[in-house]
């Protein structure tokens, strides 16, 4: 009983604080609302869209935006609004998948490196340096080219090139905490190294790691879309923002602007929202880092 009241109090102060800071920072609030809309679209698009995103209709090819086709149609007469809406789930899903993967493995390796130091640290550190030695997008291209064009491999490639950032960040955060008195106290209390890490140190660095993750989402989406744009990754008929921009790009000079502007705008707005929310989250979690 005592526990629930206290945790309710805890939660309510947290949300009041969050509301206060969101109110202070209107931009974060707006970004959160727009992103919420995108997430709803990604979940509900199959029931909302007016056309089948894959239905080809040569008679209606390259039509400018109109009431029937608010975003116009592409070269095969497919409805761009439907395709952009359906693609939301895939694009956001790939980004979240990649960020979760690199978050989990990066935090684990970084925490181990930061806690044990010495050879462990050297081996993990040099491995991460090796990843960072390549231009990251080129490395992602290489991974997808080697493993094959599939959604899983795009997620994997995006996760791998992001891994060093999480790992290094977790390493430095754990390193400053490993000799703190509460860690000594927990060690004295009989905790072995791995338990100490998992239950005492890592929970303390999670808030800052989460901020890093949310800032990273926008970048992950760009990376996944970028791979599809250059023809690696998601294959042609699948609705995906990167491919749609790439297909529309051939009409830049002939003036059918709607073919690339709408998927491009969806991409830009999503990335923008992720970044704004990441910044806002940083303010909510740690007021000292307010920029």
């Amino acid at each position: 009983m005592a526990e629930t009241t206290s945790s309710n109090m805890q939660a309510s102060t947290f949300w009041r604080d969050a509301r206060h800071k969101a109110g202070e920072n209107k931009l974060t609030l707006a970004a959160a609302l727009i992103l919420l809309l995108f997430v709803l679209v990604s979940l509900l698009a199959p029931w909302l869209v007016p056309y089948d995103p894959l239905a080809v209709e040569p008679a209606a090819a390259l039509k400018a935006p109109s009431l029937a086709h608010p975003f116009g149609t592409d070269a095969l007469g497919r409805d761009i609004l439907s395709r952009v809406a359906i693609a939301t789930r895939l694009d956001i899903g790939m980004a979240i998948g990649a960020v979760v993967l690199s978050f989990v493995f990066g935090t684990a390796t970084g925490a181990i490196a930061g806690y044990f130091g010495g050879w462990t640290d050297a081996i993990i550190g040099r491995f991460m340096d090796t990843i960072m030695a390549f231009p990251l997008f080129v490395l992602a291209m290489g991974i997808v080219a080697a493993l094959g064009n599939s959604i899983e491999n795009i997620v994997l490639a995006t996760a791998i090139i992001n891994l060093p950032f999480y790992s290094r960040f977790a390493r430095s955060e754990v390193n400053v905490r490993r000799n703190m008195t509460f860690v000594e106290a927990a060690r004295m209390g009989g905790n072995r190294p791995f338990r100490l890490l998992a239950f005492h140190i890592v929970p303390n660095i999670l808030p800052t790691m989460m901020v890093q993750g949310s800032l990273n989402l926008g970048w992950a989406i760009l990376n996944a879309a970028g791979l599809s744009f250059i023809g690696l990754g998601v294959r042609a008929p699948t609705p995906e923002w990167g491919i749609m921009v790439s297909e529309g790009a051939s009409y830049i000079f002939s003036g059918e602007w709607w073919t690339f502007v709408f998927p491009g705008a969806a991409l830009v707005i999503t990335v923008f929202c992720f970044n704004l929310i990441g910044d806002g989250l940083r303010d909510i979690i740690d007021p000292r880092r307010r920029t």
Partner: protein
Amino acid sequence: MSVPLLSVKNLNVDFRTRSGTVKVLNDVSFSLAKGEILGIVGESGSGKSVLSYALMGLLDDNAAITADRVEFGGIDLAGPTSPLASIRGRELSMIFQSPRTALNPIMRVGRQIEDVLRRHGPVSRANAKAAAIAALARVRIPDPERRYAAYPFELSGGMCQRVMIAMALSCSPSLLIADEPTTGLDVTTQAVVMDLIRDLVQETRMSAILITHDLALAGEYCDRIVVMHAGHIVEVAPASELQSHFAHPYTKGLFAATPTAETELEHLASIPGSLPDLRGELPPCRFLYRCDRRQPDCQTAPIPLRPIGGDHSVRCRHPL
């Protein structure tokens, strides 16, 4: 004296650093009887905390520890098969300075006590919770059921220290090391915390080592006092004996530097000089350059800690 609970003989701790080996503790020998409170007193940097960390086995890898004997309740802690890691927290426990940072900031205090209990034996969740609340009640925390769910930042410094004590005592250790337990607490809280420690020591017949820079505090709560200076034990005596018949010039300096209600600020003496650099060659008496009684023979042979009657020993060629 019966068989001591803890007996330490010739304990040395060196830190290997980039700028040379720092001889932090040298020839430290003392013993502790069952039920006794031993005070370890000295200025900052004299090696008090390193001593407690060395006993707990919490020093970093760059510390080289050697000892002729460290025996705790008949168990050898100095050898290569030391069971320290498994008895630490259960048989010997420690409370740290600055209670606020010694508690995990994002864990409920009750859960932290449970964590210690569960690391040291198969305890069910429900039993651990009841034991944690009992431990909080034992250190006289009002409303322990509610405090169980509190986070450290919701508690005052004195309250945090009590939680720390509850945590250290949760497994009923036979030795408690208190490393400056009252640093950062105001004077009234300090008295409450110290009374609590003394009462718990008496109730449970455990022994305690109180590490402090406050000679008056040690004099009030300890049975015997060890005075440390620059990694040497310079004097050991029963608390009352030390106050009336201190024999080492450093102890004299410490007493002169301890304010009482009568001393005025301008009469408060300080000890001249500072601790020697522990990296290079050191004279046999590490207090040599700060001492106003030094003689040529202070620089020759090593000076042992020698008894000067009763339970009183001193490391000085020309004691007071």
